[in-house]
C-alpha cells in the first residue's frame, strides 16, 4: 500500500504542477482540499482526469462519493485498489 500512496502523491504533485510540496510533505490522512494541502475544485477535476489516465478509473459515482474518494491519499489509494481487484 505505501508504494501506491507514494505513487499517488507523485502523480498529484506532477499533474497539478505543485511547487514547494514534496511527496514527504503530504500526510496520507491529511485532507487534500482546502484545509490540508490546500487544493481547489479545479485540482479535483485534474486529479479525476489523472486517475483515468494512470489507472483507467472512471468516476461514475456522484459528487459526494467522489469527494469521499478524494478526501486524502489513503482514500484515493483505496479507490485505486478496489478498481484493480474488480
Amino acid at each position, binding site marked *: 500500500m505505501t508504494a501506491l500512496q507514494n505513487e499517488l502523491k507523485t502523480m498529484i504533485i506532477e499533474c*497539478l*504542477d*505543485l*511547487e*514547494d*510540496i514534496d511527496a514527504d*510533505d503530504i500526510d496520507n490522512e491529511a485532507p487534500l*482540499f*482546502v484545509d490540508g494541502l*490546500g*487544493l*481547489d*475544485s*479545479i485540482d*479535483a*477535476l*485534474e486529479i*479525476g*482526469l489523472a486517475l*483515468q489516465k494512470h489507472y483507467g478509473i*472512471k*468516476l*461514475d*459515482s*456522484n*459528487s459526494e462519493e*467522489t*469527494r469521499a474518494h478524494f478526501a486524502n491519499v489513503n482514500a484515493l489509494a483505496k479507490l485505486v485498489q478496489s478498481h484493480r481487484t474488480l
Partner: protein
Amino acid sequence: MSSPISLSNWMVLQPDCVVAINRDEQHTTSMFVARVSVWKHTLSQYSGKRWAVYHSDPYEFLAIIYALWYTHKSACIPGDDKPATLERLCHQVDGFIGELPNAIQPADITRPLATAHMDSWRELNPQQIAVELYTSGSSGAPKAIIKTLEQLDNEIHCLQNQWPAQADAVVLSTVSHQHLYGLIFRLLRPFCAAQPVYCDICEYTEDVFNVARKQNRFVLVSSPSHISRINTLLDWQALAGQCVNIFSAAAPLEKSHAIRLSHLLNTSLWEIYGSSETGVIAWRNQSVEAHSELWQLLPSVVLTQSDDEQVHITSSFIEGGKSFALSDRIDMHPLGRFALKGRVDTIVKIEGKRVSLTGIETLLNAHAWVKESKALIVTRKRTEIAIVLAFNDEGEQALLLQGRKPIIATLRSLLSNSLETIVIPRRWRFVDALPYNKQGKLTQASLQHIVNCPADLKWPTINTRVQDENSVRINCHIPAEIRYFKGHFDKAPILPGVAQVHWAHKLAIAHFANLNRFYRLEVIKFSQVIQPNENIDIQITFNPAKQQVSFSFQSEKGVHSSGRICFD
C-alpha cells in the same frame, strides 16, 4: 400563456410546472409557492430590510429571495462565504439567511399558510431592488452591484429572444447561482421559461454525464474550467440529441475546447461575454470550425468606444439605464463584432474567478513580515497567480528560523481569509528587492523571469535548535537550491565562506537581542568545504561583555569553518 413570464408576474406559471429537480424529487410551482409562503411568514417577523443570502440549493435560494421581495426586503448576494466576505457583509446587512453562520431558520409550519395558493400572490413592482451582488473580497471594498427586477427581467427577455428556451429541457450547471452568470442562466431565466433547474451542482464532468443521462433533454450551463477539462472517455455519444444548448461564460474558451464539447454533445456551444455590472453583452459560437472568434453584440446592447479606447456599454440591464465603462480593451470590427484584448486594470480572472492583483498585494503588504510584494499572472499547466516578494528584517528572520514552506503556508492562510482557494497564489519567489529597472518600473518580463526560474533559497533548513542564555546550537541541512552554490563552482559547488559568515551573523542577531552594528571579523578559518545536501551543526556563542560572537560550522567530517564577529 400570451405575455412572457417575468420575475414580477411569475404567478402565471402553471401550478404543475416543474421548477426544480432535486435528485429524484420534483418541485412544482405550487410546491414552490408553499415554500415561498413559509419564508415570507418567517421574514415578516423581522424588521431588517437587507439580508445576506447564501444557499447551495437553487430552489431554496429562489424561495428565499422571492420571500424577501414580497416582504419588501432586498437580497444581498455574496459570491462566496469566505470569512472576510462575511465580515464585510455583516456591516451592510440586517442578518444572514441560508448556509451562513447565525443564519435565521425557516419557521416550522405544519398547516398550510393562507398564502400557499398561487392566486394570493400579486405582481411585484418591477422598480424594486431585487438583488445586490457582492463580488469576492479581493479588491479592497468593491461596490455592491444593484439590480432591480426590471433590469433582471430585461436581461432574461433578451436571452429568451436570442435563444428561445425549450420548456422541457432540464438545466444542469457546473456554476453557482451566487454569481450573476449562474443566477441568470442557471436559475432565473429557466424559472421564467418554465424550465426545471437541476438542484445539485455538477462538480465533475462525470456528474454532468450521469445527471444528463437521466434527462430526456437538457441544457448545460458551464464555464471554461469544466469545459476544458471534460472527461472525453465517457460515452457522450449516448447523450446525442439530448443536449439542447451549451452555455459557457466567465472567461474566453479555447476554440479547440469549444469544438470538442460541441462534437461530444452534438449541439451548439454559446459563449457569453458580460460582467456582473452590465449583465450580458455579447456572444460567440466557436464550436463550428469556420466560425469566427469575434464576439457579436446582443441586439439590445450598445457599445461605444471613446478616443482613449475606453469602452462603454449601455443597456437596459444596467443600473439606472446608465452606461458602464468596461475595464476590458477591445478591437472593434464592422456589424457590432469585436475582439477582446485584455484588461486595462489589475483585475484578472483565474478559472473564471475575478481577482484583483493589487488587492492581493495589499493583503500581503499589510503583513508584518512584508516589505513589498508584486502579484502576477503566470501560465503554466493552468493560469495561476505568482508572487514576487521582498521581506523586511522581521520577515527575513522568520524565513531564516522557520523555513520556506512554513512561511508560504502562513502567507497562504492569511490570503485564504479573503480569497477563494482557486485564486490563492501557487508560486512564491522571495527576493532581496523587487526588480525595478532604471526608470523605476517593474516590468512584466523581469517579474516573469524570476518566477520562471526555480525558487532559490537563501538560508539553510533548520532541523533543530538548542539554545541557552548565551549560546545556540543549530542543526541544519544545506539544500542544493541554496543560491550561493550557483556558479561557485559549476562542476563542484561549494558553499562560499562569505555565505557562512553571513548566516552566522544573521543567526546571531536572530538569537541574541541588542547586538549593535557589525564592526569586524576576527580569526576566520575555512578548514573544509561544505557541499550541497550536507547536514551541519552551527554553534554560536555570544560574549556579552566583549560584544563578540564566535561561530563554528561542524559536521561528522569535523570543523568546516570558525571565526569571531565583533560588534560595536
